[in-house]
């Protein structure tokens, strides 16, 4: 079998050409593209597949036969309709808007990540919704892939992070808000805060982490579009987000529209 002699630099090797045998196994192809050696099932965010070799099926979550499997992994409220299951065998390439991708191995651990940053995870992990709105928690043993704008940095607490630069954290017992009180104090501070007159630095509010653990930061303040993870049922003492995403043209049906994929 002969291949066209393409892309060979006269004096060099030329760029790497991949096929199913040379593609990395559950590792990055380049900083922006991740190759999954699929044999069974894998959960991924909708629309993040760029290419695949082999025999695969992509199905939406929350229907039919799959529901039984899901009960074991998906403890996030109904319908994570932004998630799909890839089933089959082959090599699957994932990417997300040319953002940096990283895979993380959890060993009987926990990691909380911004919902928009989580791209894919092994079915051996359990996905739950964090008490902190907009974040998802992964528990158990396995590998997952997360995207970030710019490479991820691991920082040990105690640390205060800009909210927009926070990707997630592992094992930290107490993530909390931190305001520079003195700066926002009193009448002058209030005016500063509301109007920006007199020099609001834009950095008066941070997330603070203490205790033992790891904090994941991205090197940019571009926040990934938040993925709806389903709305927590209203119940006293349960913090919940206002359902914000009203499907266009659906008035106040709000989350219902998303469940139907509109």
């Amino acid at each position, binding site marked *: 079998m002969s291949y066209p002699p393409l892309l060979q630099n006269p004096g060099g090797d030329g760029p790497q*050409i*991949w096929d199913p045998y040379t593609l990395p196994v559950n590792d990055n192809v380049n900083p922006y593209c991740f190759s999954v050696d699929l044999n069974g099932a894998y959960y991924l965010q909708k629309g993040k597949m*760029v290419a695949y070799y082999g025999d695969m099926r992509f199905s*939406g979550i929350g229907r039919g036969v799959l529901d039984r499997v899901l009960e074991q992994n998906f403890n996030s409220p109904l319908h994570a309709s932004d998630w799909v299951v890839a089933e089959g065998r082959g090599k699957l390439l994932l990417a997300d808007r040319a953002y940096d991708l990283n895979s993380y191995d959890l060993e009987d651990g926990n990691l909380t990540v911004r919902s928009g940053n989580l791209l894919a995870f092994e079915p051996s992990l359990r996905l739950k919704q964090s008490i902190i709105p907009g974040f998802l928690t992964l528990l158990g043993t396995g590998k997952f892939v997360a995207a970030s704008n710019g490479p991820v940095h691991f920082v040990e607490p105690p640390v205060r992070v800009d909210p927009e630069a926070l990707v997630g954290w592992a094992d930290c017992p107490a993530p909390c808000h931190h305001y520079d009180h003195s700066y926002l104090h009193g009448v002058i501070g209030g005016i500063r805060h509301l109007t920006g007159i007199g020099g609001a630095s834009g950095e008066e509010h941070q997330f603070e982490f203490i205790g033992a653990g790891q904090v994941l930061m991205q090197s940019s303040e571009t926040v990934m579009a938040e993925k709806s993870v389903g709305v927590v049922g209203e119940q006293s003492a349960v913090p919940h987000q206002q359902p914000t995403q009203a499907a266009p043209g659906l008035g106040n049906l709000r989350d219902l529209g998303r469940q139907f994929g509109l």
Partner: protein
Amino acid sequence: MVAYTGQMGFKKLTGGGDGLRGMVTRRLTGERMEVMEVKGQGTCYFADKATEINLVRLNGETLFVESDNLLCTEATLRTGTSFTGLNGMASGNGLFTTKVEGQGWAAVTSNGPAVILRVAQGLPLRVDPGAYIAHTGNLNRALKSGAGWTTLIGEGGGEAMQVEFTGEGLVYVQPSERLTFGGDA
């Protein structure tokens, strides 16, 4: 062009640079390209929105590339328009694609460095239409639908349209997806 050193002359080539026939074809097919010709001596720098640039060396093969992704070619290469069939339309990439043939270098842009995937006998490849940028070699493309009745009620797999490549050649895929009708149905 972003900069040059030396002596350069720039000339606009009307309608994509394939003469009158090419111009008419491009008008008709909507595969429009603004093309200019650079002549002279020195170094000329090309760039486009800080996207990644992939160099493709052609030795008589044909490169099929989305016109948005073609940055520049050597004058020894010919560009033309090729009919991709209904596959292109359904994937939002248009009915036509740009064809580059001859001997020389072409520069292809991509959002993030392109991943080059080999297709051979028994190794078909399926690609998200939004991530496809170019291919070379003797490949057939066919639109595959992963959509079933569940897509209609919004519980689909999110990958309703895929382009399947069979034959022998190389496919260039970018680690990002254009907003297309098919890629994010």
